[in-house]
Structure formats: C-alpha cells, structure tokens
C-alpha cells in the first residue's frame, strides 16, 4: 500500500500516539492497594484499585534506563529531559566522577486535588508522627517479580481517633554524587491517586499500602 507523503513533522507526530490501533491491549498495569488492621491485628479492610496517574517526573526518571544520562558518547552533558523536567544540572561541577541513584517512598494524604502530570505534592500530606491527625510511618520495602515492581509502606495510628487516608503518591529522591561522596538531592512526585473510597485507619490500628507497577502484565 502506498500512502500519501507526509507533509511535516506534525504529520509524523500524529502517528506517534496512535488512537486507531487494533484491539490490542497494553501489558502495562499499575495498582494501589491498602490493607487495614484493627488494634487487635485483625484485617478489617482490603482495598485495591487501578492506578491511573503517573506524572511527567516518573517519565523523566524512567528515561534514565532508556536514553541514559549523557546526550551522547562525546557530549559531557545530560539530556535536556533531565535538566528541563527534573531540574538536574547539565554537568556537575566537581572532581573525580559523578553518578546518579534514586529512591522511592510512599506518601499518604487526607486531601484531594485534580490530577495533573505536573503535580509536585499531595494536597494535604499526612505527617509522620504521633500527634493528632498524624500516622507513624514505619518500614518501607521494595521488591520485584518478573516485570513488576512493588513498593509498600506500613503505617500505624497511635492516636485515639481514626485517620482517613484519601490520597496516595510515590515520591522520589534523586541523588547526584560527586567528588568522593558529596551529594545533591532532588525530590519529585512520581504518581498521584485518590482512593475511590477513603481508607480509614482506626485508632491504634495499622495499615499497609502497596503500589504495584507492572510493566509486563
């Protein structure tokens, strides 16, 4: 089949995100999950919903394993995706060598806001603590199985009132290391979701929140 010539880059761009693909399903899936336990340790709620809201910062971070941290073999400068989107320097000023690494965490909140891929924080983050309205953030873990990555957080409500969790996000800290151990840190919001129904952590109870990113279905 011979198609008409493409007139411009705009025509090419229209091809890039096809909306007329055959009925072929994506293999990528993501889920947000919460298990709530009462003060006796009984499981009282298990909530699971699809995650729908990754930010542009997630996309920029995942560009590192795809396009790397340099513009090319002989260009000692970071790709503009990293400098423009994440605000990383195009080149570190320092001695010896530089490198990059990152960590993730789960942040919980009690507010709601409309999603935007440029969101930088939750609407009303729940602080880590034992005061009113606070949750004690416990152990964070990360694992993988095949093409899926799991991040989970355990929180405890040490207050005498239940605490309602309405929003959840993955936060990331990116470290740039240089000059025998010096570090610069940068913080981002990688995902933002509101729960379809609020998660209520009872007084003296606890909850485990897990986010699953499945790249291969």
């Amino acid at each position, binding site marked *: 089949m011979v198609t008409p010539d493409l007139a411009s880059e705009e025509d090419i761009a229209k091809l890039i995100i096809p909306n007329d693909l055959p009925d072929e399903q994506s293999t990528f899936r993501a889920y947000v999950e919460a298990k709530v336990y009462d003060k006796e340790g009984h499981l009282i709620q298990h909530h699971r919903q699809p995650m729908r809201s990754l930010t542009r910062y997630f996309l920029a971070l995942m560009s590192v394993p795809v396009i790397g*941290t340099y513009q090319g073999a002989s260009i*000692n400068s970071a790709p503009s*995706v990293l400098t*423009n989107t994440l605000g990383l320097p195009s080149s570190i000023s320092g001695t010896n060598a530089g490198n990059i690494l990152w960590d993730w965490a789960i942040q919980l909140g009690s507010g709601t806001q409309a999603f935007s891929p440029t969101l930088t924080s939750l609407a009303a983050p729940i602080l880590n603590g034992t005061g009113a309205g606070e949750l004690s953030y416990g152990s964070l873990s990360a694992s993988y199985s095949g093409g899926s990555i799991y991040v989970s957080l355990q929180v405890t409500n040490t207050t005498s009132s239940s605490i309602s969790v309405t929003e959840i996000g993955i936060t990331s800290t990116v470290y740039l290391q240089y000059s025998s*151990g010096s570090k610069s840190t940068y913080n981002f919001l990688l995902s933002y979701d509101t729960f379809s129904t609020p998660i209520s952590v009872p007084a003296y109870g606890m909850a485990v929140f897990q986010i699953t990113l499945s790249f*291969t279905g």
Partner: protein
Amino acid sequence: MVGKGIEDVDITMPRDAHNTGKDTPTFDAYLTAVVRDSEGRVVKVHRQRSHSPTANFIGLMLPLTYFNVTGNSYTLTNTGGSTFSYKPVPNASAQCISYPINASNYPTYLLMIQVGSGQQSNPFSATKLASPIANGSGTGQLVYGQPSIPSNITVSGNSAYFTISQTFNNNSGSTITITEVGIILNLQFTNTNNYANTNFGGVLVWYDVLSSSISVPNGGSVTIYYTFTVNP
C-alpha cells in the same frame, strides 16, 4: 499478630480492580516505523503497542530501598553476555550509573535503536536481538543513522510523553526485512572516588518483535520511533 483472622474477613475485591484488560493503563509505549522509498515517499507506516521492557530495565529502575532492605544486588547482562552486579548505594565507593561531571567523561547514553531479522519468544529475558542487522552497506545490512533523543517531555492535558527515533538507510542493493527492534543503552558505572569505573557496554533495555515484518526497499529508509507516555 498482623494478619490474624484473615480467614474470617470477607475480602471483596472492587470490581474495577480486576484486570479486565479494559481499564486504561497509566503507562504505555508505542512503536512506529515510517518506511520511505528511494524517492523519499512514504510507502508504509507501521504502528503497534510496544510491550517489552527487559529484565535489565527493571533492575535499573529499582529504588535504593530494594537494595538497602534486601542487601541484594541485581544482575545485569550486556549484549555480549557479560554480567554486572548492580547495587547502587549512596556512598563514595559504590558503582552507580554515571552522570556528567566537568572533571571526567564516562558516558551512559543511548547507543542505538537496533533492528534485526530474527525473533525470540521471551522478550523480557532477552539480552540481545536474536539476529541483529549489521550497520553497513553490504548484503543484508542497513546504514544506521544517529539516534535522536527528546529535548523535553511534552505535556498534553493529563498525558505526557517523550519520543526517541533513529533512521536506517538501505544501500545494500536488495530489500531488507525487519522483524525485531530493541533499545540499547551504553552503560557506565562510576564511583565518586574514581577508583573503579566500569564501561559495561551495550545493554538491551527494551525489545519488541514486530506484529508484522517491515520491508525496507533498496535505496529507501525506515525511521523507528519509540514513544513512552503516561496517562495516554
């Protein structure tokens, strides 16, 4: 203590949490190929979903918490079959992915989008293409152009995306058929003490078997576009 009584609880999975295949994924990837004849006219546009980050990609995406909590490293495999125990740690002696610094140049960069004429059944565990098409003008070869990386992430409503691309010219004298495509990153690990830098070489991070083969006519070209998007 935790989990006691789990048998007593009637756990009802929300209907929309089951993987029905109909919910909109939060992340997606697409592969587009534009084939041109020797006159530069577009003769075919191939579009498909891209399905397959490799095990190398998953290892490189893992957060520090995984390495800190488990104490494990992650075995990466390059296209030559060599392995590297990846274990990033925030200290001066750990070998982590290199980042530009004015004092030295240990580039980690997009080496190429590679095309091939074979296929393999388990893309996730692939570490190289089944049958790479060599860069050149000889029989069965394509002339590889330079890969193009994005200048920014484009935001459109709730979606955001970036695209990489590369053009291949066919000066071989015959039609060449492409059946597989992969993204290869040249990976270097450095520590900030600068005592141990490892140029690990080409690492396959993404791999797709084409849903239908692509024929590149003699004198023609093909441009491969990979698009990665969130909230499409």
